[in-house]
């Protein structure tokens, strides 16, 4: 019987069906970081349980690390304490960790793929909702909480209910200045922030098949913003070419055998889906959020929606407009921005920095804008420097930082102040997300962020390319 990738991976990793009806699912790769793991290790110690498969676990530090001065001990004692706890825990339980002293450190969802740890056909878990990113490789990857981190450390398994699959096909060709970020914002706006609850999103269609791995990761990363715990793309030649030669990817003959297996894990052509959605990629504009959840976005040429334009969601629109201080019917283009942030697990990869640099090259950041570029990993930073992107950004007046989560979630010194408006390439525009309870986030692609930084206001990047 034809099966989807999700079904194939699920079947292969099923240890047993639990009495509750859930599946005991084996986890092939467990990624950990400093924020959601310390309590899990403490629970293990209290119960006298060890880590079952330390060799299938990999740690890094990303959320709390400063991106300016990364010398130890950190100025923030709480951050230092978390960093030290991760180092101690990984050391005690024999887990590899890419620390700050390693050139492999970075945001967990950037380094997993970059090191070749993330591979097709795997199950992957991490105590972070953006673990869906790894689905770009045809892995089944989901975010978990700390008690589940404990479970995976202890048993390398999760108790989890099976998911339905929604195939989202993006046809046609994206226009110039339109990126994966715009596609996923369009999908979330269309299907809603809770449209994906109970589903895995399988992305396909010509536009997705043409995407690079970086772009596919951006798409899968934000699946959770649409309510879907898992997003994935079937593995293909683009996937295999990315993985070849990566430090933890199979090499030599094993790579040839691996490719054959990876190919076999893709959804069968005649697999049945629980739902199918078609999107015309050619009709998508650069998008910007105007509200307080990632479903509230519009094309840059469209007006901010009216409370009356949505029958059921009027109250939510009203709350969002009040918080943002925006007026229904006005354009979003032209909105003054105070801060511009390029980075995060959504858009902090080399191709993201290249697209932002393409816009920034030879221009200057508007005098009232504070602009930051934060590479997603130390390797991204080094690669960007090797091709001179740091110089492009510095000459244009952007700050060039060390790798980390930075201003995406403000668990480190990078944050908004007061009611600042931030053009951000990150993934969440929730109230308070960027560190100021009244700060305002406008999500957009890295190229759009660069355009906003240069012009000082929300600008259609297509006019600057």
């Amino acid at each position: 019987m034809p099966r989807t990738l999700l079904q194939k991976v699920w079947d292969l990793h099923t240890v047993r069906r639990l009495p509750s009806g859930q599946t005991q699912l084996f986890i092939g790769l467990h990624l950990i970081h400093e924020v959601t793991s310390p309590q899990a290790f403490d629970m293990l110690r209290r119960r006298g349980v060890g880590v079952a498969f330390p060799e299938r676990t990999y740690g890094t530090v990303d959320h709390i690390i400063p991106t300016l001065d990364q010398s130890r001990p950190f100025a923030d004692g709480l951050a230092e304490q978390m960093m030290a706890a991760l180092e101690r825990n990984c050391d005690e339980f024999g887990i590899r960790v890419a620390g700050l002293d390693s050139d492999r450190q970075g945001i967990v969802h950037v380094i997993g793929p970059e090191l070749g740890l993330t591979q097709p056909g795997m199950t992957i878990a991490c105590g972070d909702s953006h673990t869906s990113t790894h689905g770009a490789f045809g892995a089944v990857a989901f975010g978990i909480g700390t008690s589940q981190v404990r479970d995976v450390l202890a048993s390398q398994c999760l108790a989890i209910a099976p998911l339905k699959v929604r195939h989202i096909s993006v046809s046609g060709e994206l226009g110039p200045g339109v990126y994966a970020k715009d596609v996923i914002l369009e999908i979330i706006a269309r299907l809603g922030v809770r449209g994906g609850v109970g589903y895995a999103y399988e992305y396909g269609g010509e536009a997705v098949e043409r995407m690079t791995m970086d772009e596919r990761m951006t798409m899968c990363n934000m699946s959770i913003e649409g309510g879907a715990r898992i997003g994935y793309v079937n593995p293909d030649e683009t996937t295999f070419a990315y993985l070849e030669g990566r430090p933890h990817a199979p090499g030599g003959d094993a790579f040839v055998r691996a490719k054959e297996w990876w190919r076999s894990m893709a959804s069968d052509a005649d697999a049945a889906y629980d739902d199918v959605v078609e999107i015309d990629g050619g009709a998508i504009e650069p998008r910007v959020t105007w509200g307080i959840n990632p479903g509230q976005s519009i094309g840059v040429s469209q007006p901010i929606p009216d409370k009356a334009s949505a029958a059921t969601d009027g109250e939510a629109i009203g709350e969002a407009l009040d918080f943002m201080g925006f007026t229904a019917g006005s354009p979003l283009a032209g909105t003054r921005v105070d801060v511009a942030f390029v980075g995060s697990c959504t858009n902090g990869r080399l191709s993201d920095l290249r697209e932002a640099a393409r816009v920034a090259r030879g221009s200057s950041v508007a005098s009232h804008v504070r602009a930051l570029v934060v590479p997603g990993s130390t390797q991204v930073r080094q690669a960007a420097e090797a091709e001179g992107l740091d110089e492009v950004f510095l000459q244009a007046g952007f700050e060039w930082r060390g790798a980390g989560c930075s201003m995406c979630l403000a668990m480190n010194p990078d944050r908004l102040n007061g009611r600042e408006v931030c053009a951000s390439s990150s993934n969440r525009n929730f109230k308070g997300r960027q560190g100021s309870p009244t700060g305002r986030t406008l999500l957009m692609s890295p190229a759009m962020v660069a355009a906003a930084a240069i012009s000082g206001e929300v600008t259609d990047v297509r006019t600057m390319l």
Partner: protein
Amino acid sequence: MSGVTPIDRIKGTAVPLRGDNIDTDRIIPARFLKEISFSGLGAHVFADDRRSMPGHPFANADFAGASILLVNENFGSGSSREHAPQALMRWGIGACVGQSFSEIFLANSTTIGLPCATAAAADIEALMAITEHAPTTPMALSVRTRTITAGGRTVALHFPAAVRDSLLTGQWDATGLLLSEFEDVQRIASRLPYVTGF
């Protein structure tokens, strides 16, 4: 190993929290995650909303001591931080009743023994109205009978079957269960191509 503790009945007053898509950044802002323990989180639940939204139910003395949280659609969306249900629980919440919950929030809540039940929108509205009108109204929720009673009214609740089962059997803390057939885990691992080196 921790013991097995079945969870069925939660009794107490309720706190109504109106609004859809209340995300985990609002339940517990990220700056409070800079901790290696969950123990102090209760004091910071809805820290920013309590300050910026006059009359926020978690800042209203009428609802202090409540043990049942009433919410609307997609409660707990966003980040996977278990700190969100941990903070609610340490504030005193013993069960949540809403129109819908985000998937990761529901999983995290279940895993720490915090029942989250859904009910019809009209029933949620009725429960919220009862508690807003008379905050001291006692409510009693039962996972087993899938009901909540308040002010003489009984409302039907829904739980995903696996959630209800794990609460009633005490297997919501899954570590012991997942380790109980460890040879099966090793068998599955040993036949995965990426474990064996292809």
